[in-house]
């Protein structure tokens, strides 16, 4: 394995600046890794080798020439990145892992992609996900499952299983994810990587194919807390194309990660959410969580218990609000303007029937289930009982957070109740699948930021620890997250990801 791919983004960026390596070398090393392992993992739906190498060469040329242009390069210039295939890109297909968008080429770039291009990060390609980001396992992709690098028989989490697996397997140092109910954090937890859902509006959603508009947020995926901070500072900021984009930039994220890395949390109040532990959480998960609390306490943090009594309604509210917005957001996929058009096999050829046939053939079961559920929740006579009630629960959850943040600066919980489960384990039980997001969903409902950091292993599989902070206070996540990362690595004497087993490419038949 080329050592370049083991570097964090910050380390690779430093080597590029110091002239110790080149971006072309770094990109090529990652492309080689993708070629080596991705037939097994299926983290990538599209590999963008040519463009990535061209951007890398451009960065190298600018650095070689020196002068003002080299000085002006973004600190992450030349560091490769993978993009969740829910984010639209010119020049590469965007599928949302759906048959519906097979072959679709966006004529425009998402705002985050414009920022990545401007900062000259070579894009390695597009990563796999549950179709339209609906799922917690990446098993609902129309283009095959992604496997967990820690155990090829297990799920990499979802919906952003592709981005998390790519980063965990050293196919990329950085990736973009999207998080609607935990789609960045839960895959981060089960793959032993770092993922952040920023405050709602901190990163522009323009160009992220909408799942549930009031919950969706783009965020960073990486192997270190500092790398996520660097990436969020790059992709964040106000965007006039997104009306829900925060008017102000969130500053000091990288600085907070650097402060936290000293491992001192004196005076920081850490609130343990009573309702997000215990019953339903695996023993090993609970054990790692308790150990982390102990470390934080030893580092000077004040551990307090907080109660969020309405969190027990969060999953129900989420599974009403999210499908409702899904049913409307996905109406545009009808075979009229773009995407696949499927003709009915019999009967008259009318546009209504073509739309019905197109959507029947283009959407997978989970997407259909959520569209139907959302259509039901919004329909006449049910709105008040379902969608209306769910919006009220949302208010209650915000109030719970407000009260909790009176007592604590950050909140803490396990990111997911279990370690990665086996592929196919929840195939016939959507409700069991939905329970994976029980700890991550409240943040989306309230719009507050959350981070997952690796918290150790249980039965040889990664456990994630989640911190939550008040809206706009993403910096607190980076401080607390970096502190825990430092404390744990000091205790272990190594990073968690270094313990991941080698990927046995022979065990899984390579896909064509």
């Amino acid at each position: 394995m080329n050592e370049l791919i083991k570097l964090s983004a910050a380390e690779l960026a430093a080597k590029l600046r110091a002239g110790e390596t080149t971006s072309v070398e770094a990109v090529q090393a990652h492309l080689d890794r993708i070629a080596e392992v991705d037939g097994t993992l299926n983290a990538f739906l599209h590999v963008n080798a040519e463009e990535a190498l061209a951007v890398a060469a451009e960065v190298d040329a600018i650095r070689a020439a020196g002068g003002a242009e080299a000085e002006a390069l973004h600190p992450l210039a030349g560091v490769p990145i993978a993009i969740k295939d829910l984010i639209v890109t010119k020049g590469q297909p965007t599928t949302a892992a759906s048959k519906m968008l097979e072959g679709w080429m966006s004529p425009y770039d998402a705002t985050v992609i414009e920022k990545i291009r401007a900062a000259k990060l070579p894009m390695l390609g597009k990563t796999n996900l549950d179709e339209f980001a609906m799922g917690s396992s990446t098993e609902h992709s129309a283009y095959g499952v992604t496997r967990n690098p820690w155990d090829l028989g297990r799920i990499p989490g979802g919906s952003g299983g592709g981005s998390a697996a790519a980063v965990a397997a050293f196919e990329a140092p950085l990736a973009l994810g999207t998080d609607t109910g935990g789609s960045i954090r839960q895959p981060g937890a089960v793959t032993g990587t770092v993922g952040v859902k920023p405050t709602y509006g901190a990163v522009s959603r323009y160009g992220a194919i909408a799942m549930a508009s009031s919950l969706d947020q783009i965020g960073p995926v990486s192997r270190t807390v500092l790398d996520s901070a660097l990436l969020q500072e790059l992709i964040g900021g106000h965007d006039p194309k997104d009306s829900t984009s925060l008017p102000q930039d969130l500053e000091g994220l990288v600085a907070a990660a650097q402060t936290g890395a000293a491992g001192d949390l004196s005076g920081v109040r850490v609130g343990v959410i009573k309702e997000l532990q215990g019953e339903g959480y695996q023993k090993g998960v609970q054990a790692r969580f308790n150990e982390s609390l102990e470390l934080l306490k030893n580092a000077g943090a004040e551990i307090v218990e907080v109660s969020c009594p309405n969190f027990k309604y969060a999953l129900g509210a989420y599974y009403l609000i999210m499908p409702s917005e899904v049913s409307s957001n996905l109406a545009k996929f009808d075979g009229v303007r773009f995407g696949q058009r499927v003709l009915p096999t019999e009967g008259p050829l009318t546009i209504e029937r073509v739309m019905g046939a197109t959507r029947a053939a283009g959407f997978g079961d989970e997407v259909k289930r959520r569209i139907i559920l959302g259509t039901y929740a919004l329909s006449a006579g049910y709105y008040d009982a379902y969608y209306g009630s769910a919006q009220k629960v949302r208010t209650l959850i915000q109030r719970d957070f407000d009260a909790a943040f009176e007592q604590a600066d950050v909140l803490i919980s396990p990111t997911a109740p279990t370690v990665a489960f086996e592929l196919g384990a929840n195939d016939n039980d959507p409700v069991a699948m939905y329970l994976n997001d029980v700890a991550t969903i409240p943040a989306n409902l309230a719009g507050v930021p959350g981070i997952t950091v690796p918290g150790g292993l249980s039965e040889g599989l990664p456990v994630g620890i989640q911190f939550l902070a008040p809206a706009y206070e993403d910096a607190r996540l980076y401080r607390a997250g970096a502190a825990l990362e430092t404390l744990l690595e000091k205790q272990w004497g190594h990073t968690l990801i270094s313990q991941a087993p080698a990927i046995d490419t022979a065990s899984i038949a390579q896909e064509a």
Partner: protein
Amino acid sequence: MSAISREDLVHLAQLAHIEMSDAELDKMTGELDAIVGAIASVSEVASSDIPATSHPIPLTNVLREDVVGQTLSIDDVLLNAPDSDSDRFKVPAILDGE
């Protein structure tokens, strides 16, 4: 909460413009029932004095000045069109006159 009947599902599929086979309808009826059962608890706590939250972060008056920007070229407009004719999107006949 009332359960979703198969009849309801047929109606919902029509509203959502998704053709469904009998087998699909049968399978989904059971699944949706379980889901609705699991999420029905929300109405327990949603009393009338609680305001609804539709946007997680409360912003107001995000408005754009009335200035013309960049439009797509006709090639980009029709780039992904399943069918087109004379620079317009072509669709099969529409039954329901509106």
